[in-house]
């Protein structure tokens, strides 16, 4: 495995008023890795994802993607007084970078959501096809007057192939929301893959799944990682899945990263055990 750095999160703090959801988080993800982010409920995992994908602009800190700075902010206005994180001076003299989520996706970071967010009124196939919109070269005129036939055909063909890979071809004309839960998850991942990402963020992909489904998902993630040459960063509560699949694990508690290491190291880390104490298996 090469050690090329894909994602680097540096001093990221996310504060909502006085509430600190993510506190001075630092992490690095290398190419080809599967990294998991775990922690008790309310530890700020999803917020961290939202900061990385541009849903929120962080209160402070910077994020690098493949060595390029993509997000950067420092406390401003009212936040200057409220801010309780660390190292705000590091970014004060720099320009604020706060791209919208679509820009981040265009860079090659795709995500799924904790509570599945499929396009309700669309078929399975159209859900995938919509994600291809991002890769268009046509403008609104050429698209309207169907002068982009080649591109349209390519979009459709790629979507078709993707459906085949994830095994949803037989339900391609069903409404997305009519699928069983496990398949909806799979479709959401496939939809993220349709944007041709290099880094895939999965927010609790196994939530609500039974052991059998979880096992299938584990295999599925491993399979697509190899097939699409992906780096995967995921939030997960199912420890079997996390321990089985992850190369490295970050543990978050009360917004602060408290440990980092291989599954073996994390399993034996006293801090982690303490954080989970009282609910050793957080599910």
């Amino acid at each position, binding site marked *: 495995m090469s050690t090329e750095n894909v994602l680097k999160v540096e001093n990221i703090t996310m504060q*909502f008023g006085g509430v600190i959801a993510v506190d001075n988080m630092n992490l690095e993800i290398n190419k080809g890795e599967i990294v998991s982010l775990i922690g008790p409920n309310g530890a700020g995992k*999803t917020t961290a994802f*939202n900061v990385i994908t541009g*849903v929120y602009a962080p209160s402070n800190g910077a994020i690098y993607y493949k060595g390029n700075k993509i997000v950067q902010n420092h406390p401003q206005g009212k936040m200057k007084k409220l801010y309780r994180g660390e190292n705000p001076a590091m970014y004060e003299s720099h320009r604020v970078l706060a791209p919208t989520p679509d820009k981040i996706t265009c860079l090659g970071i795709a995500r799924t*959501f904790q509570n599945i967010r499929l396009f309700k009124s669309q078929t399975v196939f159209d859900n995938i096809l919509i994600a291809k919109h991002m890769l268009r070269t046509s403008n609104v005129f050429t698209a309207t007057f169907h002068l982009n036939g080649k591109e349209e055909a390519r979009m459709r063909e790629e979507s078709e192939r993707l459906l085949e890979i994830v095994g949803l071809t037989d339900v391609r004309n069903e409404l997305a929301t009519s699928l069983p839960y496990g398949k909806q998850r799979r479709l959401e991942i496939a939809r993220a893959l349709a944007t041709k990402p290099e880094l895939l963020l999965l927010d609790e992909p196994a939530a609500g799944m039974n052991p059998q489904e979880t096992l299938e998902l584990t295999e599925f993630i491993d399979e697509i990682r190899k097939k699409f040459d992906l780096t995967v960063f995921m939030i997960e509560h199912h420890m079997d899945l996390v321990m089985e699949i992850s190369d490295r694990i970050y543990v978050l508690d009360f917004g602060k990263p408290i440990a980092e290491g291989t599954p073996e190291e994390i399993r034996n880390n006293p801090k982690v055990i303490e954080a989970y104490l009282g609910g050793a298996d957080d599910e």
Partner: protein
Amino acid sequence: MEWINQNLPYLMAGISVGGQYALIAIGYTMVYGILRLINFAHGDIFMVAGLIMVYAMTVMPIYVAIPLMIILTVLLGFLVERVAYKPLRSAPRMSIMISAIGVSYLLQNLALYVTGGLSQQYPPIPWLSDTITVFGATTKRVTVITPVLTIILVLALVALIKYTKIGMAMRAASRDFETSQLMGIKINSVISMTFIIGSFLAAIGSMLFFTNYTGVTPTAGAMPGLKAFVAAVFGGIGSIPGAVIGAFIIGICENIIKGLGWTTFSDAFTFALLIVVLIAKPTGLFGEKVIDKV
């Protein structure tokens, strides 16, 4: 001093109109607070209240006509909710809003049918319509009474919401519709109560408004209704003090604009103000900020 003397009539008219808008705006803001519905029919209920008064006064003495008008208006508000909004409670919000537009269309057409499209002379109400002189400016007594009455009614309403059981139920329902149902609040009676209060205030508002303007036409409710809604949004929809303050600001600004000789733009100005406020503070002056959960 001279400037004040010159502009006092406009300022007074502004405060008065503001009070009338406030009474209508409360109906909008309370309904929105609970149902998240822009009740487009509210302005027309206000208009119908005016028409009822016109017809009632032709056949009965004033001390019967006013209570009757209020009762019928309240009944109308109650019925509209039961017939047009209640069946759609589980429907998407857009359908309820369209139902509201449909009710508005129906009430206007009904009024058109009954009146034959002619403007109906609003009967003078003794005492209220009398001319008085304030600081050297002549005006109708209603101009002075309106803000006072508005403030009294608003204080009473706030007390009702703060200290009574139904008021508490209203607050709970506006905070979280579903959960309040789980807590055993009879949501339908709370909503009915909201419409009753809103219609009651609209009835009073219509009496004050039309005494100043004399003519009632089928579309007379549309503009004041829209402006009252703007006032409610302006103040932060769902907030009663916000609606009242918003209404006074809009009433005063509108009349100052008229005083400056820009009558064509008095309506447009209201909307311009609204848009500026919405852009600067998307939830209005006193509205609460909501964060979308991802």
